[in-house]
């Protein structure tokens, strides 16, 4: 690896980027357009919310209340912990999105004709899920009150943990940072590599002392810098203009983004390997982007997807990147709570980036 040649390759790439008439406008406009689109509310239907029921009363009345949640399509009871202490870890690990807490003495209060508060704890870091889930839960409790042998006494009292304001923008912006990074690296870089092959400049460079390794690094670095700048731009606008809170650790965010970036660099290189023309690369990119946008949970909550589809969402790198970004921004989750998605991202990064580098080097010497 020769530092001087690397610097030249990177200098050349930035010059070419600057000369691309469409590129600059695209690179600037894309984050702004997406900020406007996704910053101002994208709502979706919510069903099958992963729910925990904490029954501290253990009476016929409390069991009836729990059963009415279980009977609803909106809630899927996945845990019945013994106490409220168990809630926080479940929420942190995304194992539940909502919890119903039935306090001790509920039946007694109802029998005395008093008002009994039923606690509804929601995870506000996915705000659309949270707000819809809360209103469903209130409806279920109202339904319980309407039962013939129950009084009008049960009352929902909602407690939102994380992102108390339930603003969609607080979950969209962290997700947008990952999305824009994906588009920049994946789309623009694969175009640049294919363009070089189409024009014959690649062939020319490989008759010079430039090595495969130098070429790859010289190609990848400018786009990593570019997507880093865009991510910073979106994060800045997000926190200053949209007032998205940031409770987490910068290191968690950087680790997640770096792993996600490597994954996308790898995808971009793979796309450029299978594409002969820039048009083909464009089509391949759409082929990758569409399922990513739909299945990653960026727009549609994964909870509401059919069970048959859910396993596929884990096969999409962005799904894990979103959990990391939202967890770090809104919940302040650290490395321990986000270990699973971070490890998944690391796995994707090693597998996809590694495969791309191996195939690319083999292809370049064929």
């Amino acid at each position: 690896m020769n530092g001087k040649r690397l610097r030249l390759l990177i200098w050349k790439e930035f010059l070419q980027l600057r000369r691309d008439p469409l590129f600059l406008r695209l690179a600037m406009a894309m984050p702004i357009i997406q900020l406007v689109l996704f910053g101002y509310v994208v709502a979706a239907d919510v069903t099958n919310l992963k729910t925990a029921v904490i029954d501290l009363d253990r009476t016929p009345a409390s069991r009836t209340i729990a059963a009415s949640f279980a009977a609803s399509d909106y809630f899927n009871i996945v845990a019945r912990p013994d106490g409220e202490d168990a809630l926080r870890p479940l929420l942190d690990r995304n194992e539940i999105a909502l919890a119903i807490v039935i306090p001790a003495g509920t039946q007694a209060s109802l029998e005395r004709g008093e008002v009994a508060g039923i606690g509804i704890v929601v995870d506000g870091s996915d705000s659309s899920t949270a707000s819809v889930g809360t209103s469903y839960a209130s409806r279920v409790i109202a339904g319980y009150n309407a039962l013939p042998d129950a009084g009008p006494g049960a009352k929902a009292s909602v407690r939102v943990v994380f992102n108390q304001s339930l603003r969609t923008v607080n979950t969209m912006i962290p997700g947008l940072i990952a999305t824009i990074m994906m588009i920049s690296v994946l789309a623009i870089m694969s175009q640049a590599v294919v363009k070089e092959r189409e024009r014959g400049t690649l062939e020319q460079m490989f008759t010079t002392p430039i090595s495969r390794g130098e070429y790859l690094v010289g190609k990848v670095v400018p786009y990593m810098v570019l997507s880093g700048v865009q991510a910073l731009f979106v994060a800045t606008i997000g926190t200053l203009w949209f007032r998205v809170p940031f409770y987490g650790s910068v290191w968690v965010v950087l680790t997640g983004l770096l792993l996600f970036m490597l994954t996308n660099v790898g995808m971009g290189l793979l796309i450029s390997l299978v594409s002969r023309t820039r048009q083909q690369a464009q089509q391949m990119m759409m082929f990758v982007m569409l399922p990513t946008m739909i299945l990653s949970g960026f727009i549609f909550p994964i909870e509401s997807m059919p069970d048959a589809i859910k396993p596929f969402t884990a096969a999409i790198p962005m799904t894990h990147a979103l959990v990391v970004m939202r967890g770090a921004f809104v919940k302040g989750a650290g490395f321990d709570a986000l270990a699973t998605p971070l490890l998944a991202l690391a796995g994707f990064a090693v597998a996809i980036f590694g495969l791309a580098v191996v195939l690319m080097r083999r292809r370049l010497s064929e």
Partner: protein
Amino acid sequence: MISFGRRGRHDVAPSSASPGAPAVRVQDLRKTYGSFAAVDGISFDVARGEVFGFLGPNGSGKTTTIRMLTGSIAPTSGTIEVLGVDAARQPQLIKPRIGYMSQKFSLFEDLTVAENLRFYSGVYDLTGEEFTRQREYILDMAGLRGRENELTANLSTGWKQRLALGTATMHSPELLFLDEPTSGVDPVARHQFWDLLYELSGRGVTLFVTTHYMEEATNCSRLAFMYAGRVIADGSPREIRAAHAVAGRTPSLEDIFIDLVAGQRNPG
């Protein structure tokens, strides 16, 4: 096969090659893609200072051969010695000493003339002084003085081609590969281009040229004709014509090659 950590030209021992070694020596060279043999066991030598014409129809394996000779791709089997160095094993040693110009205009079209020169000068690790001298020479040679800051995309073919030749030779290579350098160029520009090639040849640069044009073949001091991955004839233009003389009549090179190809297609 190709190491990530490649060394620059100044790390290379000064011409490890024996001075008497031919510019190119190829033995039983083969390159297969699956079951298809793009180059099917060819052998030839190119002496230093020669203008070597490498002829053959499209798809005959000329470009694949050149890409192996320049160390861009590895051969499937056989040996390649370029300037006395094993090109398959140590491509990094020959790259600083060779130049390459392809049928496509392969400079960066979205970079200016000056930027292209600067890029390749850096790639070949020219000193500041060498760069200034070469830059002046190339601008004069290509007739591009005053147009340094123009994008190369806006130059017309003849200029692009002379600029490409300039960049391919700015590091003063001992051996220059030209893969159909004049395709798509009008006869006047082609003639001018060959004058530049003769000038290089006069300075002792070995030229390895592929071409479609038979009148260009006669410009070469020696020829090899490739068809379907094999060399089917070689020698000086005079030798080839003499060998195919029939009843005192010496046919033109063009006729000979058409006959040879026809003979290959319908053996017997």
